[in-house]
C-alpha cells in the first residue's frame, strides 16, 4: 500500500474545508497534483499545498492509498469525507465531519475528533483513540437517514446526540457520553462502556443500545422486561433489558411488536 504524508505547515485563520483529503481523490495523483487540490477557507478557494507539506506517493486506486496526517488538524474539516476505500491515519486532533458519509475503508484518528464525525456513514471503520464530539454517527441536519453501516469505535468519551436517526452499523464508546443517545434510532447498535446522562433511546423505534455504566435519568418510555446474560463486545455480563420507546410507533414482525432494546449492565 502506497503511503502519502501530509504535514500541516500553518494554522489556517478560518477553518479549512478539506473534503479533498480522501484516498478516493488522492489515488493516482502526483504530489504536485495533490498540492493543487482546492480547500475552502471561508468563501475563498485555496490550494491544499498552501497548508500542508506533501511527501510520499499514492496508489493507483483508493484501496491502495494510505494518507497519513502528521500534526494538528483541529482546524481542518471533512477529512475522509465520502471515502470508499483505503486508509487515513490522523496523528493529531481533527475538526468536524471526519469520515462523514464514508462508505468503506478505514480511518484511524489517534487524537480526538470534533462533531458530526461518521455522519450518515454506510460502511467502513472509523476508529478514534481520543474523544469524539457531538452528533457522532448521526444524520445530517433535517435528514432521517443517520449512520447505516460500518463501525465507529471511540476509546475516550463522546458528546451529545450520538447515533441520532441511526439505522444500522455499530458505535462503541469506551468512555462516557452526553445526553441524547440513539434518538429516533431505527436499527444498529450503540455500546456505551461508561456512563450516560439522560434521554437514552428517546423516540427509538428499533435497534440496540447497551450501557455498561449508569444512566443518570432514564427515559419514561422504556419498560423493564427481563434480565439477560450476554456477551457484548467481548465483555460478558448480566444486563437488565428494557424495551421502548413506548411513545413511538413500532412495527410488527411475525405478529410480534418490535421495540427498541436498551440493555443496562448490572
Amino acid at each position, binding site marked *: 500500500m502506497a503511503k502519502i504524508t501530509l504535514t500541516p505547515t500553518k494554522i489556517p485563520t478560518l477553518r479549512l474545508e478539506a473534503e479533498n483529503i480522501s484516498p478516493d481523490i488522492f489515488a493516482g495523483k502526483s504530489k504536485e497534483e495533490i498540492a493543487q487540490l482546492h480547500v475552502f477557507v471561508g468563501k475563498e478557494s485555496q490550494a491544499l499545498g498552501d497548508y500542508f507539506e506533501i511527501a510520499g506517493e499514492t496508489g493507483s486506486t483508493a484501496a491502495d492509498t494510505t494518507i497519513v496526517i502528521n500534526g494538528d488538524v483541529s482546524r481542518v474539516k471533512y477529512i475522509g469525507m465520502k471515502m470508499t476505500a483505503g486508509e487515513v491515519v490522523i496523528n493529531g486532533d481533527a475538526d468536524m465531519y471526519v469520515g462523514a458519509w464514508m462508505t468503506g475503508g478505514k480511518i484511524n484518528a489517534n487524537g480526538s475528533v470534533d462533531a458530526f464525525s461518521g455522519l450518515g456513514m454506510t460502511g467502513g471503520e472509523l476508529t478514534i483513540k481520543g474523544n469524539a464530539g457531538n452528533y457522532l454517527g448521526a444524520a*445530517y*441536519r*433535517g*435528514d432521517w437517514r443517520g449512520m447505516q453501516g460500518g463501525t465507529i469505535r471511540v476509546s475516550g468519551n463522546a458528546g451529545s446526540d450520538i447515533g441520532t436517526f441511526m439505522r444500522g452499523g455499530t458505535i462503541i464508546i469506551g468512555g462516557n457520553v452526553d445526553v441524547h443517545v440513539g434518538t429516533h434510532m431505527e436499527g444498529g447498535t450503540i455500546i456505551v462502556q461508561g456512563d450516560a446522562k439522560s434521554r437514552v433511546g428517546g423516540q427509538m423505534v428499533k435497534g440496540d443500545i447497551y450501557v455498561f455504566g449508569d444512566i443518570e435519568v432514564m427515559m419514561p418510555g422504556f419498560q423493564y422486561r427481563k434480565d439477560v446474560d450476554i456477551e457484548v463486545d467481548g465483555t460478558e455480563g448480566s444486563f437488565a433489558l428494557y424495551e421502548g420507546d413506548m411513545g413511538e410507533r413500532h412495527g410488527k414482525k411475525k405478529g410480534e411488536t418490535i421495540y427498541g432494546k436498551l440493555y443496562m449492565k448490572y
Partner: protein
Amino acid sequence: MTDYIIRNGFVYDPVLGINGDIMDVAVRDGKIVDAGDLTKATEIDASGMTVMAGGVDIHAHVAGPKVNVGRNFRPEDKLFRGVAGSGVKRMEAGFSVPTVIRTGYLYARMGFGFAMEAAMPPLYARHTHEEMVDTPIIDQGALPVFGNNWFVLEYIKENEVENTAAYIAWLLAQTKGYGVKCVNPGGTESWGWGMNCETVDDVVPYFDVTPRQIVDGLIAANEMLGLPHCMHVHGNSLGEPGNYGVTLDTLKIAEGHKPNNEFGRESVLHHTHLQFHCYGGESYASKSFESKSKEVMDYVNSTDNITFDLGVVTLDETTTMTADGPFEFHLSHMNNLKWANTDVELETAAGIVPFIYNPKTFIAGAQWAIGLELGLMVKDPMKAYITTDAPNAGPLMRYPRVYKWLMSAKAREDMLDNTLKYGDSIRDRCYIGELDREISLYELAMMTRAGPAKTLGLSHMFGSLKAGLEGDIAVYPYNPESDTDDPEKIEYAFGNCNTLLKGGELIIKEGEVVSNGKQKRTFWVNAKTNENPVVERDISEKFKRYYTVTQNNYTVEGHHYLPNPYVIEVDATK
C-alpha cells in the same frame, strides 16, 4: 432594446398551425414581429434546433410560505446540491424545494416565460409576493385559495353568488392575486373539526355547506366576474384509492356553466394534478388498486369546458406541500417522516411532508403510469397541461423527463421493463401498457404553452409566436429529423435550452444564463365590481372579530410588494 431574428429553426406553434416548418422568428422592442419586418437585428442561428414560444406553467408551488417551510425544514434537500455563482449567475441550490434563484434559472433553462404559483394563502400573500419578486427572469402570478374561506362558505351557503364574486374581486385586489384556487373544498375547514370532506356531498361542520356547492358557487362567481382564468380546483379525496368517482362528481359540476370572459378562455373548470384523482380499488396493494384514468378521460374528452393538468409522478425523493392539510396529516402517518402543518386563520391550512416515490414499490409505479395515461388519452391536447404539481409529484426540474415519457413509447417500455420493480402488475392494473401514442412536438407545444396560456386567459400575451405577442422564445437543441433515435435527447434538450428570449431580452445564450432578466413582472387581476355594502360590512366585521391582523396590515401594497406589476383589468360592473 436589441432586436433579434432567430433563423432556420424547426418552428412549432399550434396557434398559427406551424408544425415543424423551417422558418425565421423575429422580435422587435420586446414583441414578436413578422420576420420580414426586421431589417437590422442580431441573428441567432437555430438551424437543426426546435423553436417554440416560451413555456407557460399553469400550476407549480414555487413561492410562498409553504415552499419556504419546505426549504427550512429540509436542509438535506440542499446538501451537495449547491452551485456557486459565476458571472451574472447567482448561487443556486436545492432539488425539490429549490431557492428562488434556482427556480428562476430552472424555468429559464426549460424555456419557460411564465409560471403560476398554484396556492397563495391570502394572509401570507405578502411573503408570496416577496419570493416572486426575488425569482429571476420569469413572469409570475399567484392564485389565492378560496375553497375553505369563511366568507366564501357563508355566502355560498346562502346561495349569494354576487356577494361571493364581490368578495373574490376584493381579495384579488387585496392580495394582488390572479384567480380562484380551491383546494380540497370544505375539507380543510372540516379538518379544523377533526373531519374531512371525502365526497362532494359531505357537509362542512358549522358552515353547513358541501364541496359541491362550493365548487359550483366559485365557478358561478368566477364567470360572473369574467376573470381571465377559470376556477382552478384540487378536488376532494386526493390520493385515496377509489377516488375517481369523487373526481367525476367534481368535474360534472361544470355542466351547465358557460365561460364568460373577454380573453378567449373556453374552460370553466381547471382540475389540477388529475393523476392523484384517478384511482380505483380499495387500497394501495396491487391486488386492489387500479387506474381509472380511462373512466375519467372518457368524461373529460366528452366535454368542452374542462381543462386539467397531469401531475405526473417522477419517482424521486421530493417534498409534498398542499393546502390540503388533512391529506398531509395522513401522508405523514403513512411514511413516518417529518411533518409540518399550519392553520391560516379564516382562510386555509397547509401541510408539508417529504415523500419518496420509490420505483421499487407497486404504488409509485402505478401513480407514474396514471399521470402519463391522462396525457396519452386526451383527444385535444389543448385541454391537458404537463405538470408534476411541482414539487408534490416530482421536482420542477423533471418536466423534461416527463416530456420524454410522453413522447417516447420506448422510454415508457424501458421504465416498465427495467426501472419499475412491478412493471408487469402495473401493466395489468393500469392502461399504460396498451397506449402506444407518442406526443408530437406540435402537441407538446399545445400542452406546455398554447394550452395553458389560453386557460390562464393569457393567449393575447403568451403561448404563440404570433406577431404582437410577448417576445418569449425558446430554442431547444433538438433536431426533430435526426434526434428521434434516443429518447434521452428529448430530456436533455428540453432541460437545457440553447437560447431563451424573455420579453425580447436575451436570457440564455448558447446554453448559458447571461442575464437575470431586467423586467420580471407580477401579474394580478383587478376586477371592478359595483359597490357592495354587505360584503364591505362583513369584511370589516371579520377583521374586527376574528383576524389577528387589521385590514391595513393585510393589504399587499402594490408599490412595495410588486415593484413591476402587470395588471389585467376586468370590468364586472355590468
